[in-house]
């Protein structure tokens, strides 16, 4: 099992791997949307407790691996001010079969939104 976690202030980039031995690759990208609480915005600022965020993401993935199994997990979360239309998070799970890959991505997102210390702290109005 491979787990790669990156919490960064830079734009995210998760290049496709050229040659994957798993049968299924499920990927979720969360993008900053142009409206937040009914207001038009141009960017969203995220803050994070970085070492704990990284560690908590690792814990969640390890626990999901115990429950569902997968071949690899790559997670990137961006912090700082993210312009509308750019990625705040990318989650990619590779697995032998489709169902497990989807379930893990989905459960990961649910648990991230409860336990990973990252916050949307400010919307930049447009």
């Amino acid at each position, binding site marked *: 099992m491979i787990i790669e976690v990156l919490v960064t202030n830079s734009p995210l980039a998760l290049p496709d791997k050229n040659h994957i031995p798993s049968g299924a690759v499920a990927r979720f990208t969360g993008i900053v949307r142009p409206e937040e609480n009914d207001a038009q915005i141009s960017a969203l600022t*995220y803050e994070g407790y970085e070492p704990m965020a990284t560690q908590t993401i690792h814990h969640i993935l390890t626990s999901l691996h115990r429950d569902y199994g997968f071949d690899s997990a790559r997670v990137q979360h961006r912090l700082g001010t993210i312009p509308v239309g750019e990625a705040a998070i990318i989650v990619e799970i590779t697995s032998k079969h489709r169902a497990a890959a989807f379930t893990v991505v989905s459960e990961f997102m649910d648990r991230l939104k409860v336990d990973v210390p990252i*916050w949307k702290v400010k919307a930049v109005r447009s």
Partner: protein
Amino acid sequence: MTILYFAQAADAAGCATEEWPVTLPLSVDEFWQEAIRRHPGLAALRPHCRIASDCQYLTEGQQIAPDGEAAILPPVSGG
């Protein structure tokens, strides 16, 4: 003890980080009492926040070492 305030907790405290000159471990309750004494605005956030020490969420019975790090974490909103 190094204290970290995040998101609304940082707004309420008026700072992101602070040093407390404590020499004994603090319980979670003692920790909150001291935080609210320094920054009364934190009182309203207490029911919604969790405390982490050295990157682990704490439960009521646990203690924070005097040379440790403690963070006040409002409800998260990542992703």
